[in-house]
């Protein structure tokens, strides 16, 4: 018993417990919450891609927001861009918008992308990628449909298509604020 209470075994046990706790914490913090539908959308305030000031999700409260995370090097982002632009034009008169967030991208490439696809919806720039953790983003593109009260109504992990937009966005546009 006295041997067990000696400083060396106590130190070894302490180190092992600390390592196990660190491992458990690491595993827990690396498992982002994927089930965000129905929850309030996290705050998001970022510089505008145009370089003119900052924009936030809060600016669009009362509107239906299709929040699209993308990057210029991402091929599926290219495929879905024309669809997002069409839906933005459809949503605008019904108090809705697509809001693009260009993540960890080279600004010049992103601006070329916007010009190439003639995108007119508002764009924010997240150079450091802080929104990836907040929205538990694993890849690009990812799209969050946010209702007029700021709650996440649907999530698309991957490119959106017309069926997704009809199912999740169209009903929200009919709702009043």
């Amino acid at each position: 018993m006295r041997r067990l209470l000696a400083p060396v075994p106590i130190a070894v046990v302490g180190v092992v417990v600390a390592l196990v706790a660190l491992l458990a914490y690491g595993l827990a913090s690396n498992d982002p919450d994927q089930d965000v539908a129905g929850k309030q959308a996290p705050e998001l305030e970022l510089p505008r891609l145009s370089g003119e000031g900052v924009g936030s999700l809060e600016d669009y409260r009362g509107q239906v927001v299709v929040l699209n995370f993308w990057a210029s090097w991402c091929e599926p982002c290219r495929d879905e861009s024309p669809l997002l632009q069409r839906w933005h034009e459809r949503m605008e008169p019904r108090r809705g918008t697509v809001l693009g967030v260009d993540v960890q991208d080279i600004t010049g490439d992103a601006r070329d992308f916007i010009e190439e696809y003639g995108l007119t919806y508002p764009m924010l720039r997240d150079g450091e990628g802080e929104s990836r953790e907040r929205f538990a983003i694993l890849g690009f593109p990812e799209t969050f449909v946010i209702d007029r009260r700021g709650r996440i109504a649907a999530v698309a992990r991957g490119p959106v298509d017309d069926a997704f937009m009809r199912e999740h966005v169209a009903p929200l546009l009919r709702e009043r604020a």
Partner: protein
Amino acid sequence: MRRAALLGALAVALVAPGAAAAQDCPKTTLGEIEKEVMCPICGTPLALASEAPQAQRQRAFIEQQIADCRSEDQIKRALVAQFGEAVLALPGDEGDDDFEDVLVYLVPAVGIAAALGGIAFALVRWRRRQQSGRGAPATAGADAGRLDADMERYDL
């Protein structure tokens, strides 16, 4: 003959500034930079992210900066402006060659050296004490009795 000399002088005047500018251009390579910066999306140093499309765009950006005659530090600062400090792979590197970059390596090295020195010093002292303990002659017979008596008398 005079005409040829004039043309020659004109050619030298046109070419010389370009050559001088090329000489002034800081010499850095993509290989040197990609060892020291991260590919933020891949989560690895850029040198290891060979085929990722984001890494390829980042390399194109660096090559453009090299072509524009930017130095290694200027290119790192441009990358930080795009992706934030996390793009720098080396600890303490802030895209400039200042004393802090050296301190990041120096302080732990001095700390480790001091700790090793302390351990070695403690070990040497401990061994000396052990040796002097073993070397002391055993107190025998009458001496031991006298010592016990003395100890009892001065017992505090």
